[in-house]
């Protein structure tokens, strides 16, 4: 990506700042310090989910995916009951094998499976929506291959120009091994 382009983007929405950490505790320190300084709007990038990061960033707020799960499971069990009962009542056979038209013990199995299916599918949907997947358009600064390897990062994609210097300082101060701004944040994979 050309610098000019990044500039124009930056002028429109702020400036990129990226801090790369080699150690988890240093990044957590960085997050703490940013929060204490009242600076928000950064993305934390990590090669693995760490509950420390989540606690530091989201302060114990549970993911809303759980509601999707609940709704999905309830939808599932209801549709399991409805699909079995309604279709059997649509053409009431004279008790095949002696069982009544609506035979809950047998339908319970379908209902169970539908619960699982509904719950799982809604959870998937919830995760996709909340996590914003697919997310091909994430900022170039976030698309740093080192973050999927062994580095952690704090990335501001649109830091206001007035905060930028403070952010850089804070990141550096917390132990980031590399702090870059603007176009420098775009990491070129070195030729191996």
């Amino acid at each position, binding site marked *: 990506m050309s610098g000019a382009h990044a500039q124009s983007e930056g002028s429109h929405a702020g400036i990129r700042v990226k801090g790369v950490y*080699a*150690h*988890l*505790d*240093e990044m*957590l*320190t960085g997050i*703490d310090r940013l929060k204490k300084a009242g600076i928000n709007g950064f*993305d934390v*990038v*990590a*090669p*693995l*989910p760490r509950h*420390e*990061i*989540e*606690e*530091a*960033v*989201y302060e114990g707020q*549970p*993911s809303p*995916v*759980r509601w999707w799960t609940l709704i999905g499971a309830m939808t599932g069990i209801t549709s399991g009951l409805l699909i*079995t009962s309604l*279709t*059997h009542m*649509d*053409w009431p056979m004279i008790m*095949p*094998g002696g*069982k009544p038209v609506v*035979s809950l013990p*047998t339908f319970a*199995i379908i209902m*169970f*499976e*539908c619960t*699982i*299916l509904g*719950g*799982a*599918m809604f*959870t*998937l949907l919830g*995760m996709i929506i*909340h*996590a914003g*997947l697919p997310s*091909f358009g*994430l900022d170039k600064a*976030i*698309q740093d*291959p080192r*973050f*999927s*390897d*062994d580095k952690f990062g704090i990335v501001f994609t649109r830091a206001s120009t007035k905060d930028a210097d403070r952010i850089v300082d804070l990141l550096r101060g917390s*132990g980031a091994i590399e702090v870059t701004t603007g176009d420098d944040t775009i990491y070129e994979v070195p030729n191996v």
Partner: protein
Amino acid sequence: MSAIQPNVHPGANGDPNRPALYSSANRDILRVMLKPTVLWAFAFSLALISMVIGGYCWYYQVIWGMGYAGITHPTFWGVYIVDFVFWVGIGHAGTLISAILYLVRSRWRTGVYRAAEAMTVFAVMTAGLFPVLHLGRCWQMYYFFPYPNQRQLWMNFKSPLMWDVFAISTYLTVSSVFFVIGLIPDIAIARDHATGLVKQVYGLLALGWRGTGRQWRHFAAAYGFFAAFAAPLVLSVHSVVSWDFATANTAGWHSTIFPPYFVAGAIYSGCGMVLTLLIPMTYLFKWHDYVNNWHFESLAKMCMLTSAILTYAYSVEYFIAWYSQNPYEQAIFYWRATGEYAWAFWLMVFCNCIAPLPFYFKKVRTSPVWLFAISILINIGMWMERFNIVVSSPAHDFDPATWGMYSPTWVEWGITLGSFGWFSFWFPLFCKTLPAIAITEIKEMIAPPMKGGGEKHA
């Protein structure tokens, strides 16, 4: 072959198997991808040939009739159902390891779960074929699905086969989703290590995963729910499969012990299959840091436990047959052990009750040779168990005048071979295209890089 010993990198919690660094996890695991070896190519083409043979047998059976299979009156179900239950059973270990052990935070699961889960998905995909190719009119399979049609017809949700349809399709869906979701961060890693077209493909598959805090947050939550759903599901699926038999009135099938007994058997066979697959893989891919004796021993212990459950179940069947004074039960269990199918019965008893006993010796359960050999026996034993159940009960059921024998024909063996081909087609493909060990989760097991003197976060 010596015991698989890890490099000495004491991981977090003292697990004996972790590389010291995140970066080595990436490289070790991705190393094996996309570089087919001669051995791999050989195995893959063997699978392809088996698939073609199986496909031809099925084609033959479809156009000329089920009569070219050995299933007959009175044993209307044969090797196809045996294979079906076998593969569903194989499919159990994966979800068990990935979901239940995840929920109970069993640490050894991490190294093996991805392969086990892939095995699950492929095994269920294989199992799903059998109900179809077992049908007399497989081209009418759409009758199974509840969709509004001009005939105004629906299906019978009271039939255990309908439960099967729902259970298996749910299981396949949920385990596939579980598998794919878990893969996304790892595919992202693969993307970041790849170049060119491959990078673009992985990039597409990774759905733009970058590991941002938002992504990880919802991912972790969803993953937990998936695990929570998969855990009861895995128990229910084999229970439902067992109800195919247990709700029938045929002596030898009509038994309340079937669901737990089937689930235990499924885990037993699944762990056996995981061993069968992982031991050679570990050697081929030199993954000693990730999969090693610790895992194998744990799997062997699972086998010991489930084998004991099976032995108990077998005994209880006999006890109940005697205790119930039900003459049909008594006759069928007597006949199983002494009749024409006694060889199958005793082979089953040997493989499932006796063969895993050496696992009580630590030497055996840490010896890859022994482990591999016994895991093969476990697979054979569980196939025989299903054969015993599926075939022997209808062969000698209520009316003695209809008693008959069943032996599979070349069509059935061909399709069975084809099913192994189908499974072995997917598995090597998976090993070469996707990270066969969950890199991200391995990293979770590695002590995170800490400066040490750093400021503690709140």
